[in-house]
């Protein structure tokens, strides 16, 4: 198995790791850099629990090779602690009751971060479309949509 050394910025921190070429970005984030906020839900890009931002664009980290992060900006849910919009979204999720078991929540929060960056004042319908790639089994999505709407209005 060949290894490759890559340099990238992880939540603002210059990071160098050596990873097997076939490793997913999700596995690298969780097992190599030790940030566990990004979740494994399905491993095939269907559930959105592993959503991260790559150069500011949200994507499923399970479908991305770790080596593709080389030279780029990676943001995980942990990185939102330093981001005013991210903190606002997290607070809105708490206040709206959008969190139950919480397993989908980091992915939802990351997807919301991208959605509100692109469209700061989305309609409820646009919010629902915006998170259609993120599955939640607990909430029925209503309070998640409420949360995103609230975050967009503050």
């Amino acid at each position, binding site marked *: 198995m060949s290894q490759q050394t890559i340099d990238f910025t992880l939540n603002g921190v210059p990071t160098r790791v050596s990873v097997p070429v076939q490793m997913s970005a999700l596995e690298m984030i*969780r097992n190599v850099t030790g940030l*566990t*906020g*990004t*979740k*494994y*839900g*399905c*491993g*095939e890009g*269907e*559930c959105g*629990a592993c959503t991260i931002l790559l150069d500011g664009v949200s994507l499923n980290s399970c479908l991305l090779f770790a080596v593709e992060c080389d030279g780029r900006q990676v943001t*995980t*849910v*942990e990185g*939102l*602690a330093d981001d005013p919009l991210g903190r606002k979204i*997290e*607070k809105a*999720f*708490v*206040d709206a*009751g*959008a*969190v*139950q*078991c*919480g*397993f*989908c*929540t*980091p992915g939802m*929060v990351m997807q919301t971060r991208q959605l509100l960056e692109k469209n700061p004042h989305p309609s409820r*319908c646009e*919010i*629902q*479309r915006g*998170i*259609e*790639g*993120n*599955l*939640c*089994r*607990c*909430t*029925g*999505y*209503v*309070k*998640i*949509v409420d949360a995103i709407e609230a975050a967009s209005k503050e």
Partner: protein
Amino acid sequence: MPETIQRDSLIGKRITKLDAPEKAGGKTRYIQDLDVQGQLYGKILRSARVHARIKSIDTAAAKALPGVHAVITAADVPYQRPIGVAKDHFPLKTDRVRSLRDEIAAVAAETEAIAEAALKLIKVEYEDLPVLADPNDSLKPDAPLIHPEPHGATAKHDHLKQAQGIAYRGKPDNIAMTFDYAQGDVAAGERESDVVFEDTFHLHYVTHCCMGVSGIIAEFDPSGNLLMYSNTQVPFLHKREFAEILNMDPARIRIIQPPIGGGFGSKLDIYPFEPITVFLAKATGRPVKLVFTREEEFLASPTRQPVILTLRSGCRKDGTLTFRTVSTLHDNGAYTSWGATTPFVMMQTISSLYRVPHCLYHTKAVYTNNPYAGSFRGYGNLQATFAVEQHMDMMAAAIGMDPLAFRLKNAQDSGEVTPQGMHFKSCGFKECLSTAAEASGFLAKFKANEADKAKPGRFKRGVGMASMLHVGGGAKIYPSDGCGTILKMDDFGSVTLITGASEIGQGSETVLAQLVCEELGVPLSAVRVINNDTEITPWDVGVHASRTTFIAGNSAIGAAKKARGKILDAAAKMAGLDAADLDLRAGHIVEAKNGTVVMTLAKLLRQLHFSDKAELVVTSFYYEPPSKHQDKHFKGDVSAAYAWATQVVEVEVDTDTGIVRLLKVTGAHDVGRILNRLGLEGQIEGGIVMGQGYALTEELMVENGVVRNPGFRDYKLVTAPEIPEMDVRFIETMDGEGPQGAKGVGEAPAICIAAATANAIHNATGVRIMALPFTPEKVYRALKAKDQHH
């Protein structure tokens, strides 16, 4: 310090979940996120055949792979004991495999990748056996038997257990479990009937799809005690069961539950991967972590039980129900888990949702080579309600009554004791019916849709209703339905609530903290809840049956009341006042009549700490009011309180494609009393969407024992754009036994949706579909079949 404080209450408010901030920040560490120093990774080799004899297993190459610490098969764990409700399988299969999920061997290795590579090196020789894939075939005389003989060599070593468990004695037929119930005389009921219907309903396979996949870490501590980090919903029952399976002293087993990424009933039984991980830890002397892949989760975690249900029911012209006769066939799968016992709940709906004088209920769960069924939110009630509520609409139409009036005529009232023996001390059923009907404009829409049905047009609107009855005050399933509480107060005025009740995301820790605040007059921020370690928390039967708020809530209130008494007595003595004139508000001791502050709670508690009366730890236990269990004929009460709900569903049917869209759900729920409005709404909304998936999109496709769609790509969960508009109303009946008047609600919202959707499709199109799910193909075919009749 304020001079006066008025009484305030958190009850009924929108209280945010205590654990939400850490979860929203991605800081919560689920089982997947935990690592123990020195841990190895476990993987399981599952059967490649649906039904076969295992002729040989060759693990030599796997054992030789660098980084592999252990490869085990049944032969390596002669001490293993059978698991499951009927003790009908060993964690590692011995002589044969009976379904595709069956566990043949397991590996512990230094990395997951090495463990996976090792699995591929294990060679298994099979001798195929005939596959039994259709439960209708299970009872035929020439059907292959699933458990014809004791399960292999392991059994022979265990003489003591010969009598117990199908794994030890085999089963000469394929009947896993039967339930029979009778009340009155159905033949007499039928003679009194003006209208009789008989239909067969087909309920399909679905599965829980918890967003967090299954996982466990098992390790033996330096003194040989077993520690498991587990997602179980029933830690104390599991402690006992693991002790049996592993032949260990239960006192040497400790279970810690990290935050759980979804439960919904999926974690009520022990599944083979859990003891297998313990075997690996034992074999290697190292901690072992085993986490499923999503595919494995689909293949090897439980399902809701598929049911074929034949219902015969009748009524008089005046709308009085006369009788019901039900027979069901449950596809048990290859092994028996809780799915087989769901008739216990189904019969409650059949006998007691409405007043029915005569009832007969026979049910059989039969073995097949399919995936085996566990417990899933609603526990059989979705299936029973699907049939009962469709017949209610059909009978109403046949006698020319509207669906609402027909239901109101037969609905239960407070105070009723049903022929089965269920006692409805608080019952808001009729109010649920009328509230949901009024809020949704049911009757006007129902009649307008009826009139529009025959008119041309591609899109048809329909409205349908269904109601449900479910346990809401615990469930007398086990010998005890209790929960214990330990409550501690420190000298800063903070409270630690140590409860047996598990949090699975539903918000129990927040509700329990609220109930404590109500008694002790402390802010929510002053309460810590400890609920996840069997070594610390008192006993609880588990998180199931919508029981936690009711049972654990009453237990927490009991402890808080004791602490309140101690505090007020001490304060009264100190201040020279009467305890009865004092109250606790916002962290202060005040005079009850005018709120004048006497002292801060923290100050009083500190003073108590410096005296010899500092017993600021109290314990309490709640077991629902002493009452008898049901007798062996299933007569008797099963819960201290019952939850009621009516849901009205509005659909649009595209008659060109068969696509059914859920437009709106109006729900009215008798919840006893609202404790946390935010959490309650979340339970209802989530349940509605889970019910929507059951009705419209979800199906685990099992063909000849093979799961065809083990992934979210092909197993279709409802996504955000597809959810209906929701209007949820709460009926507060203030249950006399409930904590602050509340009743259980967790399962209720998922129960009615499929039945109400069936009725709505009929209202829209005149087509009645008695099989789930309502996929476009099924609806399209039903519409075409109707067209051909005309």
